């Protein structure tokens, strides 16, 4: 089966600034993929590359088997809701639906109408006068009613208050189930991702830190705690993601490909938040970058 997204050595730079570096990904279909990372980590860049809004500076990216944004057939397969959910301020809700219907051969008018009435949007209202939440819902409706195979959301809930956020994510999940589509959504808030995603990509410092099925990730990562000298010499085959040394003892987060290492330390499972934080912390340390990747010439 074609991967929903496949990237090889993917990179994007704006002038001298690297927005995304050396990104290798292969994501299976039918997943809800969460893309997390701090602000400026390259999340938007990756998503815009995936829907063809921008072109890579290096490497390749294929979405559902072909280059993003190159043909109408490819555009029909991908629904994208950009950050801050742009809509035409001087067009009404009905105009937006008409636009969707005219510009998308596979447009599902019934679905669109049903969602609009469910959300309680007035068809005659101008998009410029709607709240952030309503705008996001409208943008989501347009993206979904074209019946794509992949939905991409860039920080869909960023502008919403907690209640609207909850409703929006719920709607989003219903859509994904309705369509049987894959979805990628980025967020800097892990809680959003935790609720809806079964596949996780951690992006920090313009690089993919870790990517994989959420269940597998949780199985493959452990926290070892014990005395500092005991943890200083781990057997080979285990990658230390993050180490935390305090006076009372040390704890390290390790990645394994099977059972956790046996030793005089205590082994615990970790939750997603700890895992994500461990990788993001590692990326933010200037020296830690070399732990798992060979040193690259910078600039």
């Amino acid at each position, binding site marked *: 089966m074609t991967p929903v997204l496949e990237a090889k050595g993917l990179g994007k730079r704006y002038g001298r600034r690297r927005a995304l570096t050396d990104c290798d990904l292969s994501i299976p279909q039918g997943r809800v993929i969460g893309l997390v990372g701090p602000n400026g980590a390259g999340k938007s860049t990756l998503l815009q590359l995936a829907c063809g809004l921008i072109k890579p500076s290096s490497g390749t990216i294929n979405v559902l088997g072909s280059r993003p944004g*190159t043909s109408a057939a490819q555009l029909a397969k991908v629904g994208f809701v950009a950050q801050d959910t*742009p809509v035409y301020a001087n067009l009404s809700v009905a105009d937006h639906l008409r636009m*969707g219907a005219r*510009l998308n051969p596979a447009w599902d008018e019934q679905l669109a109408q049903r969602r609009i009435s469910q959300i309680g949007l007035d068809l005659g209202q101008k998009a410029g006068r709607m709240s952030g939440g309503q705008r996001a819902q409208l943008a989501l409706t347009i993206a979904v009613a074209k019946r794509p195979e992949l939905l991409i959301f860039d920080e869909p809930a960023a502008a919403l208050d907690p209640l609207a956020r909850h409703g929006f994510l719920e709607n989003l999940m219903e859509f994904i189930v309705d369509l049987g589509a894959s979805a990628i959504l980025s967020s800097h808030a892990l809680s959003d991702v935790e609720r809806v995603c079964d596949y996780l990509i951690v992006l920090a410092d313009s690089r993919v830190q870790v990517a994989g099925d959420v269940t597998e990730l949780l199985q493959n990562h452990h926290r070892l705690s014990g005395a500092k000298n005991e943890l200083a010499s781990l057997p080979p085959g285990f990658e230390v993601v993050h180490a935390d040394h305090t006076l009372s003892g040390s704890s390290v987060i390790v990645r394994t490909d099977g059972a956790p290492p046996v030793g005089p330390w205590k082994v615990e499972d970790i939750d997603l938040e700890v895992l994500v934080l461990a990788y993001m912390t590692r990326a933010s340390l200037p020296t830690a970058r070399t732990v798992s990747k060979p040193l690259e010439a910078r600039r």
Partner: protein
Amino acid sequence: MIWMTWRQFRTQAVLGIAVLVLLAIYMVVLGEQIRHSYNTDAAQCAKGSCAGVLSEFTSQYNLQVDVLGYALIVVPGIIGMFWGVPLITRELESGTHRLVWNQTVTRGKWLAVKLGFVGLVSMAFTGLYSLLLTWAASPIDAVNDNRFSPLVFDARNIVPLAYGAFAFMLGMTFGLFIRKTVPAMAAALVLFAVVQGVMPTMVRPNYVTPVSQTVALTKAEVGSLSFFGAYGTVGGVSVPGGPWIVSTSDVLDSSGKDVGHTSWWSYCVNVASPAQLPECVSKENVHVDVTLQPASRYWSFQWMETGIFALFAAVLAGLCFWRVRSRLA
């Protein structure tokens, strides 16, 4: 996509149509008035004393016709600013390009429809305006015999069509590359003005090599000149047949010597009364050398000018497609 383009362009289009309708009504009325006066004057002319009647006829309508002509020269600039520039920048500034580029329409097609639709409307606007003005002013132009002179040439027949296309594409291109409405508007207007200044003064005279001719300053010729310089320069030389006078030499005597520093010239220009001037100058048997584009070249110049501006517009359109396809985020 056509629907979408129309929906976004609707307000501006309605405004444009309203302006054009008002102008059309005015020009039709003016054209009828001009024809009426012309027929009356021509009838009187047939009975004798023609010159005074015709000059009265042209001076009666010159102002209106000139203003309409200048407006037609300015209109493409306005179209570029208010139709060309916002077509793209409005999307880029509000981020809606990220919405529309993810519908099932490739960017190339999106641009082609917008550019084609609004571009054709722009050309239709300047084209219809020009058609009406050319018709309304034709008796005046015939009497003035000056349709080849730059300001009249620019506002008649087919060239305004190409100016419309060019100015629209200029606005669109600046919008696409500058990405901000107001700076792009300013840049488009400035460059359009520069091109419209440079073309008729420096480029158009050389489409075909001008013809040289000697014009004797007879009493009648001196009487029709519009300018006398203190040192032998004159302006407003007219040659029968309506050619475009491209350049005029200083006043020369029969041996080809410049007369600008002779005492008789300074006497004629500075001391003699305007009524005595033609007699004063013409009795010295002097002439000027001019270069001119014969009136017979009028249509080939119209076509060449149109072709050049159409080429500019096509190059700009190519730039827009390249930009939208390959570089923009």
